[in-house]
C-alpha cells in the first residue's frame, strides 16, 4: 500500500483489494450563527456555547438528531485552557448522538477550511461516511494570559506546604505582575501584528487606498444584497438576538470609507492606506458544514450541493521578509490548479478571504505580475487574472466579520450553495475556488465543484 492514498497496482496489474478506492466527498449544507463584533451580542458567549448553537442549527436543518456522525472536526484559534476538548464538549451538548467522535484542530484563520479538507479526505478514503467540519472563535471571551511573574507565584503557592512559606512566596509579587497580558494578533517571531505585516505587503504591491475601499464597499453591498435575497435563510440560524452579521454596513459609501484614518502602517506616511473600513474587525461567531459520502446522503434523502475536489496548503518565509505574512495562498493556488490541470478561467466563483481588502488585492496583483510568475511561481509569465465579477459575490469577511476559525465554514457552506444554484440555472457544472490566508505565513486553498 502506498502512503499517498493512491491505489497501488499489484504485479499482475490488478488493484489491491485492501486499498480503498477513493470516492466523492459531498457538501450537504452549512449552518452558522450570525457573526458579532467583539464585545457585542456574544460578549458573554463562550466558544463552546457558540459552536453548540451552530451545531444544533445544522442538526435541526438536516434532521440529524441522535445521528452518529463519522467524525466532527472543529477548533478555535483563541482557546482557553479549559476548552481542551472543545469540540467534543460541544457535540455532547448538542442533539447529535453522544457516540460521535471528534477532533480539535488549530491552523489559525485556516482552521475551518482545514477541517473541511481533513474530513473530506477521510470520506474519500472510506474511513468515514459523514462528517461535520466547523470552527468557532470569540475575540470577546478571549483567554487572558497572566504575567510570567504571577504565573510563577501561583504555581509555587500551589506547591508550598506551610503558611510562612506561602507568605514568603506572596511577598515576591510586584504590582506590575498583576497586569494581564492582553491577547494580541502579533506574530511571535516579528512582533508585528497581522495588520502591520499586511501594510508592508500593501506598500510593496502598491495597492491604492481607493482600490481597497472599493473592495470593502463591494463586500458590504454584496452581503446586504444576499440577505435581501434570502440567500442566508438556509445557511444561518439566529443566535442571542442577532439575525444578521453585526458588522454589516448596508448603507456604507465610498465617501464614508474614504473619510476613515489609516490604522495600520502609519509609519509609512503617505503609503498608509489600511483603515478600519478596509480591514476586518475582531469578531465572534461559529460555523459548521455537513459533509458526506453519496451513499450516506442518499440514504437520508439529504441534498448534495457540491463536492470537495482537492486542496493545497502553502507557507511563506515572512520572518525573513521573503514574502508577505498573508501571501501563502499565492503559492498554493498555482500548485493546486496545476495538479488539477485547471486555469483561473475555469472557475465560476472565487472566494478569497478578505482578511484585509489589501490581502485580496495583493494576491491578485502577484498573480498578474509577469516577473513574480517567472521568478517565484516558476511559470512562463504571469499566473493570470480573475474575472472580478466572480469574486466574493455574496460578500466576504470585510462585511461579515472574521471569527478566525469560523471563516472557512462560512465560505464553504455559502460557496457550495452558490455552485449548486449556478449549475441548476445553467445546466452545466460550476466550479469554485476557496483561498484562506492564515497567521504564521500559512494558507489553505480548495476547489469545490457543483453537484
Amino acid at each position, binding site marked *: 500500500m502506498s502512503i499517498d492514498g493512491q491505489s497501488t497496482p499489484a504485479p499482475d496489474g490488478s488493484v489491491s483489494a485492501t486499498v480503498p478506492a477513493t470516492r466523492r466527498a459531498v457538501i450537504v449544507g452549512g449552518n452558522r450563527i450570525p457573526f458579532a463584533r467583539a464585545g457585542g451580542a456574544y460578549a458573554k458567549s463562550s466558544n463552546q456555547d457558540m459552536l453548540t448553537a451552530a451545531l444544533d*442549527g445544522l442538526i435541526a436543518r438536516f434532521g440529524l438528531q441522535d445521528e452518529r456522525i463519522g467524525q466532527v472536526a472543529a477548533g478555535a484559534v483563541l482557546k482557553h485552557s479549559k476548552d481542551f476538548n472543545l469540540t467534543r464538549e460541544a457535540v455532547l451538548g448538542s*442533539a447529535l448522538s453522544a457516540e460521535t467522535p471528534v477532533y480539535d484542530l488549530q491552523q489559525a484563520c485556516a482552521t475551518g477550511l482545514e477541517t473541511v479538507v481533513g474530513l473530506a479526505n477521510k470520506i474519500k478514503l472510506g474511513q468515514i461516511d459523514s462528517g461535520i467540519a466547523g470552527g468557532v472563535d470569540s475575540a470577546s471571551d478571549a483567554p487572558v494570559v497572566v504575567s510570567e511573574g504571577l504565573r510563577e507565584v501561583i504555581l509555587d503557592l500551589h506547591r508550598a506546604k506551610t503558611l510562612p512559606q506561602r507568605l514568603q512566596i506572596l511577598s515576591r509579587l510586584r504590582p506590575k505582575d498583576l497586569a494581564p497580558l492582553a491577547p494580541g494578533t502579533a506574530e511571535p517571531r516579528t512582533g508585528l501584528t497581522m495588520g502591520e505585516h499586511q501594510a508592508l505587503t500593501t506598500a510593496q504591491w502598491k495597492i491604492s487606498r481607493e482600490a481597497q475601499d472599493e473592495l470593502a464597499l463591494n463586500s458590504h453591498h454584496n452581503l446586504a444584497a444576499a440577505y435581501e435575497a*434570502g440567500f442566508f*435563510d438556509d445557511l444561518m440560524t*439566529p443566535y442571542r438576538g442577532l*439575525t444578521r452579521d453585526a458588522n454589516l454596513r448596508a448603507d456604507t459609501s465610498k465617501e464614508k470609507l474614504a473619510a476613515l484614518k489609516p490604522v495600520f502602517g502609519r509609519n509609512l506616511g503617505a503609503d498608509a492606506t489600511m483603515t478600519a473600513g478596509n480591514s476586518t474587525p475582531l469578531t465572534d461567531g461559529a460555523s459548521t458544514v455537513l459533509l458526506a459520502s453519496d451513499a450516506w446522503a442518499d440514504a437520508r*434523502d*439529504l441534498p448534495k450541493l457540491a463536492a470537495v475536489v482537492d486542496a493545497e496548503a502553502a507557507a511563506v518565509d515572512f520572518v525573513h521578509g521573503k514574502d508577505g505574512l498573508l501571501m501563502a495562498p499565492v503559492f498554493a493556488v498555482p500548485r493546486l490548479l496545476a495538479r488539477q490541470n485547471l486555469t483561473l478561467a475555469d472557475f465560476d466563483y472565487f472566494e478569497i478571504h478578505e482578511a484585509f481588502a489589501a490581502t485580496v488585492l495583493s494576491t491578485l496583483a502577484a498573480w498578474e505580475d509577469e516577473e513574480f510568475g517567472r521568478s517565484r511561481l516558476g511559470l512562463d509569465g504571469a499566473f493570470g487574472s480573475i474575472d472580478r465579477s466572480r469574486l466574493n459575490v455574496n460578500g466576504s469577511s470585510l462585511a461579515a466579520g472574521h471569527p478566525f476559525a469560523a471563516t472557512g465554514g462560512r465560505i464553504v457552506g455559502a460557496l457550495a450553495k452558490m455552485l449548486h444554484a449556478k449549475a441548476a440555472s445553467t445546466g452545466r457544472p460550476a466550479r469554485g475556488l476557496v483561498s484562506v490566508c492564515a497567521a504564521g505565513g500559512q494558507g489553505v486553498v480548495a476547489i469545490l465543484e457543483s453537484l
Partner: protein
Amino acid sequence: MADTYTQLVNSGLGRNLAKKLGLPQPAVLRRYQPGQPLVAGPVVVVGDTAGADKLAAELLSWDLDVRRHAVPAEKLGAIILVLDELEHPADLEKPVLAAAGSLRDLRAGGRIITLSRPAAEATSPEAAAARQGVDGFLRSLAKELRAGATGNGVLLADGTTPTSASALGAITFFLSARSAFVDGQFLAVSTEDGSLPADPERPLAGKVAVVTGAARGIGAEIARTMHRDGASLVLVDIPAAGDQLASVANEVRGTALQLDITGADAGRRILDHAVQRHGRLDIVVHNAGVTRDKLLANMDQARWNSVININIAAQLRINEALLESGHLGPTPRIVSVASTSGIAGNRGQTNYAASKAGVMGMVRASAPLFASRGGTINAVAPGFIETEMTARIPLAVREVARRLNSLQQGGLPSDVAETIAFLASDAAGGINGEVLRVCGQNLVGA
C-alpha cells in the same frame, strides 16, 4: 402563564374561601397522558335506536365499561345520548330525562356526548325542529356541568351511521382527555370516510406533517403533540425565529425550514422540503399568525396588510400550490388555526378578526377541493389560551377573559394542539370544512 387563581381555589383554604364568597371555582382539567384510559369510568349509552345498539356494542368491543341503563348511585365517566332517529321534538323527552337522572353521578371531568342529525338535512319541519332542538339542549346542558365535565355533540349526516369511522373518531376525541377545553360544541361528520388508527397511542404514525409558526407557543406545542402521536415533522417559521425553531425541531426530531410563508414560492418550498427529506407530505397545519392590534380609526396600511397577508393570504397561496402540485399524500389533511375573534369580533382586532374569519371562509369553500383528492380541510378556533401573547394582556382584563367560559379558565396550548392532531388524523376523514372551537364554551360567539 400560570393560572394562579385556579391553583388557589383548588387548595384547601382557597377552596373554602371561594365557596363562601360565591367566587368561580374552575376545576383542574384532566388532560391527555399516553397510556391513560379513554374515559374515567363507565359509559352509559342512552337511546333505543338501532344506531344506539350498534354503538354500545362497538364501545363494548373496545373493552369499555358500557351500560345501557345507569345503575343508581354508580359514578359515571360519560353519558352518550344517541338521538339519530328524532322525528319530532317530543322524541327528545325519553332520552333526555333518562340522562337527567344520571347527571349527578357524572364524575369530575366526565363527558356528555349527543349524536344527532343536522337540521338542514331534515325532510319535515317536525324533524328539523327536533334536530335543531338538540343544539339548544346540548349547549345549555354544557353550561350546567361542573368539575371540568364537558358536553359536545356529533352531527351525523343522513346516511352515516353512529359506528362509521369518523363518528367513532369524534366520539373518541370527545370522550378522551384530549378534548379537555372543547365544550358546548358540535362537530359534523359528513361522510363515512376515514379509518380508526391501528395504534390509538400513535394515530399519526407514518405521516409527514408540516407545522407553520412552530418556533414557539401554540405552534411548538402542536409539533410536540403530533410528534407524540407518531408524525414526522417539518417545522416552519421565519428565519429570524430560527434559533427557537431549531430548538423545537431538535426536541421533536424533526427538520427546521426557515421560511417566510408570505413569499411567492413558499408552498413549493414547503412541498419540496417535505418530499425530498421525508418522502411525502400528508398534513399541513397552518398555525403561523400575527396580531397588530389597533382600533380601526388608528389603523394604518402596514398593520392591516401584514395581518391579512400572513394570517390568510399566505394560507390561500400555499393551499393552491399544494393542490396544483399533485404531490400530496393519498389522504391529505389541512388544519388551520382560526380564532373566536373571527366569530364574535374583538375590539381593536378588526384586521385580525377579518383574517381569522377569512380562514373559516377558506376552510368551508376549500372542503370540496380537498375532498376530490381524498382529503379534508378544517379549522380550530381557539378562545382564551394561556400563551406568551395572552400573558401580556393587563391582569384585570386577563382575569375576566379567563373566567368568561363554562370551564371558568383559560385553555392551554396543548388543548389546541390535541384538537388539531385529531383533525389531522385518519379518524377524522369524514370531517371536512368544519370549524371546531377550543374555547371552554366561551360566552361570546356562536
